[in-house]
């Protein structure tokens, strides 16, 4: 497999690649982040005309929506599409494909080593431009930027798994220049044939990012400890989720939660008045609407083993609950039960769809 030396900024090079692919007719559409200059805002865009690529910023530390979630609605169009994804977005999409919510067949996946993304409130405040230079400097040194999402700082999967093309931006190149684009698959070689740039035979070396990995693992330890720092248990859970307003925004932006109607919004959990009377008879009081903790515990059992830690849930929470940190911490435990890593391998079944006859001998 070959590599391409990047002689400009990594983001620009990927934009050139998308342009080349669109203009040469190798792809019908591209999915990439885009900057809307007049509003100083960002969005994810589906672009079919190369002239519309001018505003594309394929590699930018902004995630307005988990692209994996959006991809599930377009991947089965039968058209050839190149997508630029952050590692956790790619992993989320793998999880969705396992759930028959998308297909890799006509996709060319381009991902990059990820320095983490800025929280949405910074995006909404129009602060990204101002923060970018420092951010790029920090990640080029293989360090962890302080003002990114908490789950990003604690993410050890910042090297893409299974991308057709990996762009190395973190740790091994200065200010985004002199980075390398690695073509990992035959599909990548085929698509990139004829694309400009100095070719080589470089192999991606994860050891160059050891410093970043160590720093992140340390952050992870801190983050996970913070979830139970005032003691674990019901009181702690009520402390964390007690202020939840029940908007279920965490669920609606979660790339894994693909259900059109979540169980917890269904008629299954509508109660008639005797339910409340019964509760009043022994609790003296109960919360309205009910089932706040139930929703979060339920969602943890339904999807935490597939949680990729993208952090969208925390970002959209109107009351600042560290949803993502809790889900990452618990998700790591539930996934470990099955030696499962969400997004690692599209051929791997999700743990609840399969079983082994000999396992969990301590249960039952």
């Amino acid at each position: 497999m070959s590599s391409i030396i990047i002689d400009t900024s990594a983001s620009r090079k990927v934009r050139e690649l998308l342009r080349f692919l669109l203009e040469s007719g190798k792809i019908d559409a591209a999915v990439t982040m885009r900057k809307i200059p007049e509003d100083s805002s960002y969005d994810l865009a589906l672009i079919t005309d190369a002239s519309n690529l001018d505003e594309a910023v394929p590699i930018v530390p902004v995630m307005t929506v988990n692209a994996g979630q959006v991809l599930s609605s377009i991947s089965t169009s039968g058209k050839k599409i190149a997508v630029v994804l952050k590692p956790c977005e790619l992993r989320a999409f793998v999880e969705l494909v396992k759930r028959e919510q998308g297909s890799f067949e006509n996709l060319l996946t381009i991902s990059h080593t990820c320095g983490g993304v800025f929280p949405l409130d910074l995006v909404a405040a129009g602060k990204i431009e101002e923060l970018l230079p420092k951010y790029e400097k920090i990640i080029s040194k293989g360090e962890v930027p302080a003002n990114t999402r908490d789950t990003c700082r604690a993410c050890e999967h910042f090297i893409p798994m299974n991308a057709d093309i990996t762009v190395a931006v973190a740790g091994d190149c200065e200010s985004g220049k002199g980075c390398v684009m690695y073509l990992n698959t035959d599909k990548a070689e085929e698509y990139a044939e004829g694309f400009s740039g100095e070719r080589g035979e470089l192999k991606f070396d994860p050891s160059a990012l050891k410093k970043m990995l160590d720093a992140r693992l340390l952050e992870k330890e801190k983050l996970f400890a913070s979830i139970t720092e005032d003691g674990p248990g019901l009181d702690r859970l009520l402390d964390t989720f007690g202020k939840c307003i029940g908007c279920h925004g965490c669920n609606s932006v979660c790339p894994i939660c693909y259900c059109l109607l979540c169980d917890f919004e269904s008629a299954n959990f509508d109660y008639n008045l005797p339910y409340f009377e019964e509760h009043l008879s022994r609790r003296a009081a109960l919360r309205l609407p009910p089932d706040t903790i139930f929703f979060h515990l339920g969602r943890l059992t339904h999807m935490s083993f597939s949680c990729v830690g993208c952090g969208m849930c925390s970002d959209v929470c109107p009351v600042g609950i560290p949803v993502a940190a809790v889900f990452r911490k618990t998700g790591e435990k539930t996934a470990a039960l099955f030696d499962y890593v969400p997004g690692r391998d599209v051929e791997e079944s999700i743990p609840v769809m399969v079983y082994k006859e000999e396992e969990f001998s301590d249960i039952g």
Partner: protein
Amino acid sequence: MKKEFTPRITSFLCKWCSYTGADLAGTARLQYPTSIIPIQVMCSSRVDPVFLIKAFLNGSDGVLIGGCHPGDCHYETGNYHARRRFAIVKSVFDSLGLESKRLKLSWISASEGPKFARVANEYTEEIMKLGENPTRKSIFL
């Protein structure tokens, strides 16, 4: 005088094995505590993780799933799936520091009346030690 604590153990029992086992315990006049509140399900895999959570949050002091022994499922593989789901719920509870001892999965066949009585007795005792579930009185759930 303080009222003695009588635990409530919501018990989801598979129709083919554990529920029949409970019946057998009854017809054999084996003693087991009234704390067991049986709910018949067609298979242990019918028990969605949220059933356990709902029972726990509604104040059940213990939640028991009774299913066929591995390999004996009436639907061939249901209990293997039940076991995985149970492992997930338990792990979620452990990671949040909730009392996962209040959740139990037990394999009890249709012929194991004595085992049913034993499990019911032992689990009730274990729950007695844990005391009343704090969720029973909590108002912010």
